């Protein structure tokens, strides 16, 4: 019994996390940079890069809520991205929404539809695990692509659909998209943060580590996975809607694009899969680089090569991602400091004895 009391009286162990002041400081700086970015760089070419970065920011954050936390790598989230796009294009013409601010009202509708579609899809794909899951999600994306090609009456087939764009002046055209995108991205990040802190989020991480064990501890794994799947689909629906509005057209091969999921996973892996801010960091850096390449080299093929090579490099050199690498560094820093304190205590045993 005596051992227990000494154990409980021990001071709580030091935190290995990077201190709050540093974390929140960096976050505030990052936020401010994002807010003033399009005002400083008001060149439309640069702010276009910014809009795409915001779209990817919300998409990858959404993707990470499911794939990062549960460890189920979904490579078919383009399905929800595409649903968001087609919903926007189809509803804009069906409801005859005039181009302008009103189109933004389609964002919640797209989010709802993507989330709704995620329920039956999730019920099917979440019955399997590991490779079969990954492969099934890819197959599912091809199914949706085929539907987009074949249901010509609704989707226009390979001709695609147009989303007419508002008659705004070129110099400010990007701004509404950028700020709405930033707003949605922040909602996604805050959601991701809340989930990571919640009991629900902890259950998702438990599923990632050992799903059967999690189940034997009373976690309803099926419902947890499905909930995360639907939440993540909702943000991809929002991203799809933004993308369709901004680009002005949707095509089967670009809406349901296997490369899109590769992009998402590269961003998440580069930044740190399953961390809250890692994927965001990856999204900002990689989507920025992507748009830059696209503008500089024009062709999509160069870009495929760059992506492939970059991804192989990241997987080889930084399999954990940037953010975990930083926190590992910090952790070993704390451990070293602790060791020094411990050593000095050992040198002066009289002092240590005086505490008891």
């Amino acid at each position, binding site marked *: 019994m005596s051992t227990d009391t000494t*154990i*409980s009286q021990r001071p*709580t*162990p030091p935190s290995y996390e990077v201190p709050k002041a540093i974390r929140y400081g960096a976050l505030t700086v990052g936020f401010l940079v994002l807010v003033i970015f399009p005002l400083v760089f008001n060149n439309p070419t640069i702010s276009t890069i910014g809009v795409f970065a915001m779209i990817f920011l919300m998409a990858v954050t959404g993707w990470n809520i499911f794939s990062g936390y549960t460890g189920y790598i979904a490579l078919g989230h383009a399905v929800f991205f595409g649903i968001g796009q087609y919903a926007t294009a189809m509803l804009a013409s069906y409801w005859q929404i005039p181009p302008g601010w009103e189109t933004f009202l389609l964002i919640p509708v797209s989010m709802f539809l993507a989330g709704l579609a995620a329920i039956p899809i999730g019920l099917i794909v979440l019955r399997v695990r590991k490779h079969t899951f990954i492969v099934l999600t890819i197959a599912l994306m091809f199914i949706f692509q085929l539907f987009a090609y074949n249901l010509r009456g609704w989707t226009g087939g390979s001709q695609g659909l147009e989303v007419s764009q508002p008659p705004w002046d070129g110099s400010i055209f990007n701004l509404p998209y950028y700020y709405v995108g930033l707003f949605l991205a922040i909602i996604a990040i805050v959601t991701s943060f*809340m989930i990571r802190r919640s009991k629900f989020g902890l259950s998702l*991480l*438990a599923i990632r580590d050992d799903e059967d064990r999690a189940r*034997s501890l*009373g976690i309803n794994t099926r419902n947890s996975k499905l909930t995360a799947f639907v939440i993540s689909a909702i943000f991809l629906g929002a991203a799809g809607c933004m993308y369709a509005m901004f680009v002005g057209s949707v095509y089967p091969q670009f809406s349901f694009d296997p490369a899109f999921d590769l992009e998402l996973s590269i961003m998440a892996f580069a930044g740190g899969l399953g961390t809250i801010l890692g994927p965001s960091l990856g999204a900002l850096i990689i989507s920025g680089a992507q748009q830059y390449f696209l503008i500089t080299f024009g062709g999509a093929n160069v870009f495929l090569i760059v992506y492939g090579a970059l991804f192989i490099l990241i997987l080889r050199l930084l399999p954990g991602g940037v953010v975990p690498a930083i926190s590992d560094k910090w952790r070993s820093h704390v451990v070293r400091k602790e060791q020094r304190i411990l050593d000095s205590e050992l040198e002066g045993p009289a002092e240590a004895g005086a505490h008891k």
Partner: protein
Amino acid sequence: MTLLGVEGIVKNYGGIQALRNCTMNFQEGAINGLIGPNGSGKTTLFNVMTGYETPDSGKVTFRGKDITNSTPDEVFAAGIGRTFQLTRIFPRLTVIENVHIAAQRKGLVAQMRQWSQPDERARALESLDFVGLTKLSREPAGSLSYGQQKLLEFAFIMVAEPKVMLLDEPAGGVNPTLLKHLGGRIKELNKTGVTFIIVEHDMEFVMGICDQVSVMHQGSALLEGKPEIVRNDPAVLEAYLGTDMTEVN
């Protein structure tokens, strides 16, 4: 009073009969030992009792209620906790997070609240204290030693305050000092009213700690009784040695 009972359980894998008409009752408030030679169906019985396997026929009852077809999460929520022969913890989460996982919450709203609620936190720290892992609470669980992982598994099941704990070979691979510690914890918890069912090959450990020992042989119950009686029963010896002899031949 019988807390957890199985009645006429049959379970076949292909041509192998893992459990044949197995009937057993575990008394409330006791530390029950479950012994038997390798392949006598102990782990299969655990799997059947905790919802991991559905028996081909027979019934599992907990407090008189039929739980035969419940899923593992339902069984756990009902108050039956279990450890595995090969320890299963969540290696990439920290020790304290591991302990929080088993804390039960009902409803979506409660699920969305922070995982480290003060009341759960107190309980989690208490159970970590109980097994002596508090100072490691912020380490990733995967970095603990094998014996410490066993203690951690024990701690996180305790958090859910189960009525019964099923331990599958808790002594396997644990050093004698740690084992003594674990034995002490089991006895202490038992005093607070937790029933134990322990599968174990370490006879000294079983005989030292259990109030009641059941022996399994070839998929069914051979006999049941106080440790000292079981220890001296010739049928038990034969079950252990007899099968060995036939295997040799």
